[in-house]
């Protein structure tokens, strides 16, 4: 390294740091390998497969939103098209007995996603900001509606199905069982995560961040922001197609729901709730959202409503997502001032939980009266049984909700004060908070 770089540039990572970096990827690989031995049920394998697919999809979405500042409401198009082309490929491969084994099929999905993103991307990325969001929505609706017209390709309402065991067998794996699918998904997830992380460390990746921060200035340092956005769009399309193909393999079917607004909305939820400002944010969000959608639907009839309310709460109170919330505390941990805020959190937790309990009680009671009015009012929500017809319950719900809200407001302002103190102390120690 030249003399000037030695004194001014950030030092290259020390050997220990690099070891830690590569070790963490290795640990991740080992964890993925050993997971089936810890959670042995078939249901868990399905859950993990779905999480893996969601992780790839959410990370691909964040290439657009978190890294390049493009809010898309139609990213599922590339996911869906990847899925459809994967299904058709599998059918063709199976029918003609082509020597292409199943593990290669996700790559076909990725290339399809790339192809369509390259095709539609130049026009899509012409504008940025709100206009881009609207364009993505319109294009998504266009393609999703076309799915019902082009019946031979999209299979109409029923979709197109396939048999994944009919492809060339590698090492005697027919991929019929869920555990083999899990390994396929896990392998591709690891590859995709590494690839997308590497992308953030390239010149293109850095310029994507620059375009996100200040597209105007980017022009004045010699870069065409439209080209930067277009390339980011193509990469996002590739990985979305990859995820879609894995989903198609997992379910052995692809239908117009893959392309639809709900799918686009779900990936947006996952990435945002996880936190778009950090690379691992969407990973956290994908795991959280998959978990929630699988788990919540067992506990309550209206889990989608809770989903939406959680999303709104994150947008209003934690725009950095779960990862943002955690990372926010990093300076405090470094300065050792975290203990200052913990008591405040614990105190504020009580009325907040009460308020949430009151809200849930109210919602479930209302649901009982509007959706199942004739049923037995002794209902169960979140595993807790109560009598929805009892006025006592209504009063309790009101008290919990309103009382909880009023007390929570007070206690959270105490948390705010504690935070200010802790942050000031951290700054005095020279740590930026």
């Amino acid at each position, binding site marked *: *390294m*030249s003399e*000037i*770089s030695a*004194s*001014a*540039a*950030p030092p*290259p990572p020390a050997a220990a740091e690099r070891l830690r970096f590569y070790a963490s990827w290795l640990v991740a690989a080992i964890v993925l390998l050993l997971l089936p031995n810890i959670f042995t049920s078939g249901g868990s394998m399905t859950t993990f497969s779905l999480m893996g697919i969601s992780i790839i999809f959410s990370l691909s979405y964040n290439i657009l939103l978190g890294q390049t500042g493009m809010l898309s409401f139609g990213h599922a198009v590339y996911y869906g098209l990847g899925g459809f082309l994967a299904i058709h490929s599998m059918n063709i491969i199976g029918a003609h007995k082509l020597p292409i084994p199943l593990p290669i099929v996700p790559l076909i999905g990725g290339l399809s996603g790339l192809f369509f993103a390259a095709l539609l991307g130049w026009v899509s990325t012409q504008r940025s900001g709100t206009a881009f969001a609207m364009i993505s929505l319109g294009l998504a609706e266009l393609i999703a509606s076309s799915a019902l017209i082009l019946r031979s390709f999209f299979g109409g309402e029923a979709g197109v199905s396939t048999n994944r065991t009919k492809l060339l067998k590698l090492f005697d794996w027919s991929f019929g069982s869920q555990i083999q699918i899990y390994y396929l998904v896990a392998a591709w997830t690891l590859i995709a995560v590494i690839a997308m992380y*590497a*992308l953030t*460390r*390239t*010149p*293109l*990746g*850095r*310029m994507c*961040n*620059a375009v*996100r*921060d*200040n597209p*105007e*200035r*980017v*022009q*004045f*340092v*010699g*870069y*065409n922001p439209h*080209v*930067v956005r277009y*390339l980011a769009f193509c*990469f996002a399309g590739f990985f979305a197609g990859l995820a879609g193909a894995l989903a198609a393999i997992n379910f052995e079917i692809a239908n117009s729901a893959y392309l639809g607004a709900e799918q686009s909305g779900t990936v947006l939820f996952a990435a945002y709730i996880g936190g778009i400002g950090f690379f691992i944010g969407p990973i956290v969000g994908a795991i959280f959202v998959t978990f929630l959608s699988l788990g919540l639907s067992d506990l309550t009839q209206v889990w989608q409503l809770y989903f939406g309310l959680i999303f709104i709460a994150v947008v209003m109170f934690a725009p950095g997502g779960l990862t943002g919330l955690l990372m926010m505390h990093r300076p405090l941990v470094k300065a050792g001032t975290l203990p200052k805020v913990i008591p405040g959190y614990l105190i504020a937790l009580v009325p907040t939980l009460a308020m949430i309990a009151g809200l849930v009680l109210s919602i479930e009671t209302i649901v009982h009266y509007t959706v199942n009015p004739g049923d037995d009012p002794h209902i169960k929500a979140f595993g807790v049984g109560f009598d929805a017809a009892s006025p006592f319950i209504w009063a309790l719900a009101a008290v919990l909700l309103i009382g909880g809200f009023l007390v929570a407001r007070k206690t959270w302002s105490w948390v705010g004060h504690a935070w200010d103190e802790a942050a000031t102390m951290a700054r005095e120690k020279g740590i*930026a908070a």
Partner: protein
Amino acid sequence: MSAAIELRAVEKSFGQVAILRNINLSVAQGERHALIGPNGAGKSTTFNLISGYMKPTSGHVLLRGQEIAGLPPYQINRRGLSRSFQVTNVFTHMSVWENLRCAVLWSTGQRYAFWMNIDNLPEVRDRTAQILTDINLTARRDVPAGLLTYAEQRALEIGITVAGGADVILLDEPTAGMSHAETERAVALIRRLTEGRTLLIVEHDMSVVFGLADRISVLVYGQIIASGTPEEIRGDPKVREAYLGEEVA
């Protein structure tokens, strides 16, 4: 040798309102040229026309003898012209180091490369380190640009402008809002960084103008009323009347 920047019969109107009328300006290569005039005269508009932010309504804008009117800003930048902004225009969420690195990137030929790790490019690192040292922000290298002090941001702004190695530099009121001491430091920095390059600077601080410029042009109500050496401008009665006022020499 053709002039670095040349404006021939340039006009700019927004709808019916004429901002610039028949502008003729010539900046020689290697020259330090100041553009002065009262507020609203059209100085920033002139910068916008030269740097490609806007298109002239009519007339020619030439960079080293080649027509650049109508080209998008990134193409003009690639031909060796770079500008700074009156209102600080940096990449707020990125650190000082990363800001400068983005400014350096195109000139090192990386283009839109996505197959190599940016931390492994020695030329990029060296050039960025050089600029960082030149603008004296080495101590603030890892601070997000949005958290810098005003003067530090202005220094970063200038750093981003010159980082790409452009040989024609446009600075738009670089010392605006600075204290006397800060202005002195900024002028020394500008003088150092534009050594051997062509500089076109818009300024209101007359001590900066007369201390830095080889030649001065005066823009009033969209027209250049005088152009010449600092002595000629100081003595010009039209300029005194329109802008400088009857100063005690």
